[in-house]
């Protein structure tokens, strides 16, 4: 393992501290328990809190700010945060209209957020994201996994919350976006969890893992390496199968890097995926390409398609000002 580390045990706090200081105009960091909030507390709105294991940066802390999250709770690498983090974060950002948790569907995250919600002195609701169409049940999940589509849910729900919408409306929009979004990933190499010190899975130079999860957990199958177009065709077919879009449907196409794949390759993937979706009568009218939901140092990428309607499009386009997404301001 070759990584920028001082001591494995210090890595998370050192990274969070760097993040908070690099973006000190936007976010504030609390340690023990670990959570991040907006620098300027919002008032009279549903407070949106997300969180999950670390190693997926910029998810979730990178999406704290106007138009997206109010707080994020980072766990240890690939390990869910604990209820005390969510309770303290909720205490810090509660703004009189309830707490909405956005939680990726993994057993650990679901249970920890569930226990936090039970202990919370405020009204709360939860949106579970489950956009990964690679497998139905997987390591750590019953049902589909929540992956890069979570960013789209957080963006749209965050936008709605800024308008003063109530808790149930925010939850409903989150669930709608989730139900219209599907993702699938491909890994070319494994990631290495720093504390483990060695690759999570073995994969040879001429293989890929089709449908990989964002923790390096297995997907549909191990396959022989092929040209990009052939790989992406399988991915877009799986997404079309899952979403069954109608002709002429407008869509947002997100190509997400897993951490060790250059933008040059991500744009190549975009080029192929956009063409293939177009051939199926989908109008790709919004796009996002980059590292938005990573898996440490895994080489690979995921394709996410979100079927837009006027409401989702409006909330995707609205101003956002966070460390990792910024437009309209």
């Amino acid at each position: 393992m070759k990584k920028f580390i001082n001591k494995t045990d210090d890595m998370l706090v050192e990274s969070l501290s760097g993040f908070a200081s690099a973006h000190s105009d936007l976010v504030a960091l609390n340690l023990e328990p670990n959570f991040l909030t907006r620098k300027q507390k919002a008032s009279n709105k549903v407070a949106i809190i997300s969180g999950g294991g670390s190693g997926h940066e910029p998810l979730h802390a990178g999406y704290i700010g106007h138009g997206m999250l109010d707080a994020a709770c980072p766990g240890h690498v690939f390990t869910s945060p604990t209820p005390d983090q969510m309770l303290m974060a909720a205490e810090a950002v509660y703004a009189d209209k309830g707490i909405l948790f956005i939680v990726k569907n993994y057993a650990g995250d679901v249970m920890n957020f569930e226990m936090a919600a039970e202990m919370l002195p405020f009204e709360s609701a939860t949106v579970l994201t489950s956009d990964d169409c690679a497998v139905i049940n997987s390591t750590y999940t019953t049902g589909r996994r929540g992956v890069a589509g979570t960013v789209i849910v957080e963006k749209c729900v965050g936008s709605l919350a800024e308008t003063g919408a109530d808790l149930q409306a925010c939850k409903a929009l989150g669930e709608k976006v989730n139900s219209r979004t599907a993702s699938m990933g491909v890994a070319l190499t494994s990631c290495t969890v720093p504390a483990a010190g060695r690759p999570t899975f073995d994969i040879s130079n001429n293989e890929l893992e089709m449908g990989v999860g964002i923790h390096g957990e297995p997907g549909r199958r191990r396959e022989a390496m092929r040209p990009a177009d052939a790989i992406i065709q399988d991915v877009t077919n799986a997404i079309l199968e899952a979403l069954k879009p109608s002709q002429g449907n407008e869509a947002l196409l997100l190509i997400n890097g897993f951490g060790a794949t250059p933008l040059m390759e991500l744009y190549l993937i975009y080029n192929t995926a956009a063409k293939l979706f177009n051939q199926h009568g989908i109008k790709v009218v919004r796009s996002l390409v980059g590292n938005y939901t990573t898996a440490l140092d895994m080489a690979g990428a995921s394709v996410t398609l979100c079927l837009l309607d006027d409401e989702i499009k409006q909330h995707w386009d609205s101003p956002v000002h966070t460390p990792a997404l910024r437009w309209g301001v």
Partner: protein
Amino acid sequence: MSTAFILIAAKNIRDTILDHESELESLDREIGDGDHYINMKRGVSTIVEMEADLAGYPPDAVLNKIGMKLLSTIGGASGPLLASFFMGMAKVLKEKGDESTHTYASAFAAGVDVIRLRGKADLGEKTMLDVLIPVSRQFTQLAADNMPVPQICTVLITTAEQGMQSTRDLIATKGRAAGLGERAIGHIDPGAKSCQLMIAAVCNLLLEAKESLG
């Protein structure tokens, strides 16, 4: 089972987990993501560090505090599940107000039930419950039969071992390895392994100490 015993048991559990580092790590790397050992180590070490804070409390309060601490230190899926176990156990001990073998058997069963509810899983799904449910059933039965504690411990060590081994040939439908399908066959579930280790650590300590549960 006194507070003093619980604190010694916590040390034994920690030592057992630390002794099995490479085994737990490789099991989790095979069908998980390799963080199970790290999380367990963090949890069991924290409990041992709490010794001074726990010493003055009755067993039910100690188990409840252990549960709360595990909830905030382990994370992942193991954290809430193990925390729920100890908190569920503590509740029964408090209600019953005695330290008989029967009470410990029903407290153990209550703890396992909370795990089942929280994790929405059951026997045969390649999880820690494949160790905990058979051990709980056996414990309840043997306590009802008034079997002496050392013999109960000997039986439970074997039951836990068999439960752990049974996960090898299961297809996972819940937790860690669900979705791996047949690829998970042939691999022992790491959560089942660490539960088996913890049960064996406590039973062995009782056998050595010949301390009676009641």
